[in-house]
């Protein structure tokens, strides 16, 4: 079986909803029928065959050759298999993923990994605002899995995160980890203003002292931490980082005491 490949023929004339093109939803569907799936969301109503040249036959291994910021909702809700985007993706890439791996070899738009529950999403370029965050009206953001951004992330990364691991390697925008409920956010390369704003629980791990912190965070000393050793080793073992992030005794700030105050921001001293 060869990877099911969607090669972008030209820049799409409208925004596309690619959520029907996941391993689960394409299982057992003939290529002829795949080409007829409607993915355009405006009056154009583009079908797969209008936008992509389709080849291959393995729905567990899907490749989008050529990217565009108009490719929204890539791999939404996928539960297994692998999806690879060679190029950029639009909004909500990997939203509500439950398993499998999604790799975006380019940049992703806003709300990448929004509400993820499992699996692994890796973005080699930058991600937009609200990485892993809930859509308007939802109570929790990321709820499990691993989300890696090798480049930068926009504002409000890991907003209302509840479970899982998000790692941003080249810096994030402001308010990273805002309103976190639990889980782990790693930001290397600088974290913008006020990380952890209104966080309840959870861990924000930084490679340097934050630029600013909400005044409702309090300094909690720097005792030796086995947790720091464990997470450092895990990040290296997973190929997320090359060297330890925190060291054996990171500085801790606790907060946000404007809310529950059981969260933590750790960074090497």
């Amino acid at each position: 079986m060869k990877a099911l490949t969607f090669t972008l023929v030209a820049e799409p004339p409208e925004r596309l909803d690619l959520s029907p093109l996941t391993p689960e939803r394409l299982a057992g569907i003939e290529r002829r029928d795949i080409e007829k799936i409607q993915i355009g969301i405006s009056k154009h109503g583009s079908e797969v065959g209008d936008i992509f040249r389709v080849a291959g036959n393995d729905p567990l291994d899907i490749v989008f050759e050529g990217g565009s910021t108009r490719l929204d909702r890539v791999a939404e809700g996928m539960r297994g298999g692998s999806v690879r985007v060679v190029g950029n993706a639009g909004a909500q890439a990997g939203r509500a993923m439950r398993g499998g791996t999604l790799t975006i070899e380019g940049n992703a738009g806003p709300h990448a990994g929004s509400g993820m529950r499992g699996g692994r999403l890796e973005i080699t370029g930058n991600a937009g605002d609200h990485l892993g965050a809930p859509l308007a009206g939802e109570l929790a953001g990321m709820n499990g899995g691993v989300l890696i951004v090798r480049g930068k992330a926009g504002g409000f990364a890991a907003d209302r995160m509840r479970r899982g691991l998000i790692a941003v390697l080249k810096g994030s925008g402001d308010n990273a980890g805002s309103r976190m409920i639990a889980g782990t956010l790693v930001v290397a390369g600088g974290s913008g203003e006020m990380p952890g704003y209104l966080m309840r629980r959870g861990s924000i791990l930084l490679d340097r002292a934050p630029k600013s912190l909400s005044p409702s965070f309090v300094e909690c000393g720097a005792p030796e931490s086995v947790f720091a050793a464990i997470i450092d080793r895990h990040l290296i073992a997973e190929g997320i980082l090359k060297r330890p992030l925190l060291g054996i005794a990171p500085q801790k700030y606790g907060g946000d005491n404007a809310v529950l105050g059981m969260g933590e921001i750790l960074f090497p001293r």
Partner: protein
Amino acid sequence: MPNVSVNGIVIDDTFAEAFGMRATAIIITAPNRKWARQAAITMTGFATSVIGCGCEAAIDVELPPSATPDGRPGCRVMIFAMGTDELQKQLLNRVGQCVLTSPGSACFAGLEGSAELKLGSALRYFGDGWQISKKIGGRHFWRVPVMDGEFLCEATTGLTKGAVGGGNFFVMAESSAKALVAAEAAVAAIGLVPGAIVPFPGGIARSGSKIGGKYKGMIASANEAYAPTLRGVVRSELGSDINAVLEIVIDGETNDAVAAAMKAGIKAVIELGPKRGAVRISAGNYGGKLGKFIYSLKDMLP
């Protein structure tokens, strides 16, 4: 088959008889080897025999920093009991009182088994609401605030129902000193066998027992057939050349681990030779009717 002699040491034509047990293992780490060992030794104190201690426990192997989950020196500790409930109780009491309290310690699962035993998921309540749950790479940890920082403890550890307790052999010598030298050599060799522990003091028991006794309520009592002071008085197993007998009792994660440990121990005694150590090796059994596992000494020779 008659008794055989190897390197001048008589090997009795008999066998050790052992029983199925439940076992678990944990990995204790600390800032340095001294404190990893201290926590492990403390939690395995008073754990020589299930007869009176509720469990049998000891350090299995010491682990270098490269082999522990947090990159610090550590010890793998094994605990054996007759039932799952007792094992669970002993595990939590011992880790709670001896590892949680030990400076700089952390505690990890040391066994993947057929079932799980609670570890951090019960000890977390020491945190009184300030404990933190973390799932990292599929493993679940609890972080409990303590006075030198945090006690990190894996939520659960594994349980094996295929463990074996009571593998043994007797080291018999002309004097107490020689018996001790031989037994120490055996313990040192068994220390290198993974998955096997020798739970008695320093790995050696001098009061090997028989089941029951003449007094009501005694589960075990003096094994007079192997007591040299009673040699002329009772039906003794000892010849005139034996003045001291020491027993090595072995618990193993598996049948194979017990056999490997017996082989390693017996080999060490044989290599030491009869002049410096033992002149005879025997083993304890109940006629082969009670135990599920039989280790014939002639199969354990190097």
